[in-house]
């Protein structure tokens, strides 16, 4: 079975007054239908840029995109005009981090969902409204019929996020992109939204990429996990593989430095240094300056993502010396 989504050597560069910055460097990923990929990374890792590249909403004039992006068998980079408009929001949909700013404050929720449906399927206003009601029920918003007329500011944070999910799913996309959708939510609301997304994803069979910086959230929702650093994928595998038996030094460092596993009161095993500046990446491995296992070999060239035996891939030339997976 060919993968639904296939990225090969995707490279995204931005033109800035200070020169050309490489935000994503030769990214290769596969995603099957109905699979959830958790994309973990910190600031500057390129995870959000990846989503925006997939949705084709990066600023055209400033962006240079290279490589291949196949979505549902079509070349997504070659889409233009009406095809592109049908693609964005139709085939692929995105949920953002901040529902307050992602929803239009001057239109009711029902109107926004209905508009999305009408644009993508061309059905009548009445049918679109019925669909909107259906969606609000699907995301378990109480009193959905009354809520159709509500405005974003009249709803609480959790409800707004559900409304945004309803909006994103109203066009029955086959690829769902989620950009840290639960980061701004309270803990009790976050777990509700995560469970809702998991259930809907399974029910509707969507391929999903879930970007987060929170390892716990990734563990809850992902089938597979990819870890990004400095614009590159440094490790992929199933969620259990990457999160319970991390191989790459960065993944190990990240998991070891989470407060979750640390002994209360004791020193946390923090990774020294800071995430790299995308404009000033080191010549070889981006993580080498902070890596405890770094050797001169690491600075020679960017380590390629090497497929392992059990379906995992790691981009580290010192993997053998470290002793493989923990």
């Amino acid at each position, binding site marked *: 079975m060919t993968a639904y989504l296939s990225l090969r050597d995707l490279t995204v560069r931005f033109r800035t007054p200070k020169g050309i910055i490489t935000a994503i460097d030769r990214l290769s990923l596969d995603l099957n239908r109905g699979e959830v990929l958790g994309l973990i990374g910190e600031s500057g890792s390129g995870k959000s840029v990846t989503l925006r590249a997939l949705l084709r909403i990066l600023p055209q004039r400033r962006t240079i995109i290279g490589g291949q992006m196949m979505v549902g068998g079509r070349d997504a980079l070659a889409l233009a005009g009406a095809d592109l408009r049908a693609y964005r929001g139709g085939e692929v949909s995105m949920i953002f981090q901040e529902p307050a700013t992602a929803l239009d404050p001057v239109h009711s929720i029902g109107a926004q969902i209905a508009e999305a449906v009408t644009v993508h399927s061309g059905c009548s206003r009445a049918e679109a409204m019925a669909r909107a009601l259906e969606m609000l029920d699907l995301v378990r918003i109480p009193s959905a019929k009354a809520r159709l007329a509500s405005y974003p500011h009249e709803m609480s944070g959790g409800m707004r996020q559900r409304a945004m999910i309803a909006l994103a799913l109203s066009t029955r996309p086959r690829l769902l992109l989620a950009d840290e959708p639960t980061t701004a939510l309270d803990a009790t609301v976050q777990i509700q939204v995560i469970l809702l997304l998991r259930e809907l994803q399974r029910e509707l069979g969507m391929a999903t990429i879930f970007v987060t910086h929170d390892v716990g959230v990734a563990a809850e929702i992902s089938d597979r996990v990819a870890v990004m650093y400095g614009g590159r994928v440094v490790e992929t595998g199933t969620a259990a593989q990457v999160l319970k038996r991390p191989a790459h030094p960065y993944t190990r460092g990240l998991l070891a430095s989470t407060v979750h596993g640390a002994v209360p009161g004791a020193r946390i095993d*923090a990774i*020294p*240094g*800071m995430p*790299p500046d995308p404009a*000033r990446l080191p010549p070889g491995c981006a993580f080498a*300056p*902070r890596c405890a296992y770094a050797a001169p070999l690491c600075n020679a060239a960017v380590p390629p993502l090497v497929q392992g035996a059990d379906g995992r891939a790691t981009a580290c030339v010192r993997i053998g010396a470290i002793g493989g997976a923990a």
Partner: protein
Amino acid sequence: MTATLTQDVPIERSTGYWAGVWSRLRRDPVSLACMAVLAVIVGACVLAPWLTSHDPAVGSVILRLKPVGTPGHILGTDELGRDMLTRLLYGGRTSLVMGAVPVVLALLIGGSLGMVAGFVGGRVNTAIMRSVDVVFAFPSILLAVAIAGAMGAGIVNALLALTIVLIPPLVRVTEAATTQVRRLDYVEAARASGAGAFTILRVHVVGNVLGPVLVYAASQLSVAIIMAAGLSFIGLGAKPPTPEWGLMLNTLRGAIYSQPMLAALPGVFIFAVSLSFNLLSDGLRQAMELG
């Protein structure tokens, strides 16, 4: 042992905020052109005595309305035979002063009122802002005409009228900016350090409010120049024989059909200066956006 950072921000010379604004402004071609135009015109007006040998007040009945390009009078002569270039340069001094002084005064007075209103809030804010609203309700140019008319013609009266008219919008802009800044975390932190209101205003508020206010004041300069010229045009500003661009537009009206280029010259200068200030204020706004 505290954690030290291994990969670090490279050592570059850190530029101050205004130095950064200046370097960005310098690199914008439109702003650069405006600054060049203004430098030439304002510089020429300031250096008028050294650039021309004619007396702006002395005319000649024979040499009336000579066209542009006349030997000895590069830009021609006006309806009383006075050299146009000289009149324009000396007139520029008057016009520029009549435009700039009200803006500076309004900035000082209006800016202070606005900051107090924004920072103190509550009833003081209501009192100041509603009083300003009353003045604001009058259309600016009519108000300027009314005040100048009531006080009589003359440059000083015109300056006063223009200052009064320019104060309300500056109060508004400053108050809005101050209200925004007052809520920010670093102001809260300053209060938490135990700083008094004056210290907070001086150290934290003024510097951060100055940016948007200066942008607005620069755009007001362009308006003030036109209003000053307008007042002089209808006889409420500079009085003859004082050279002033607006006044010159009035006195050269009669020559519109015979010497259109002469009649238009003062207007061209007003236009150039006003437009330059306007575009410069836009460039300044863009240069102030950090990062």
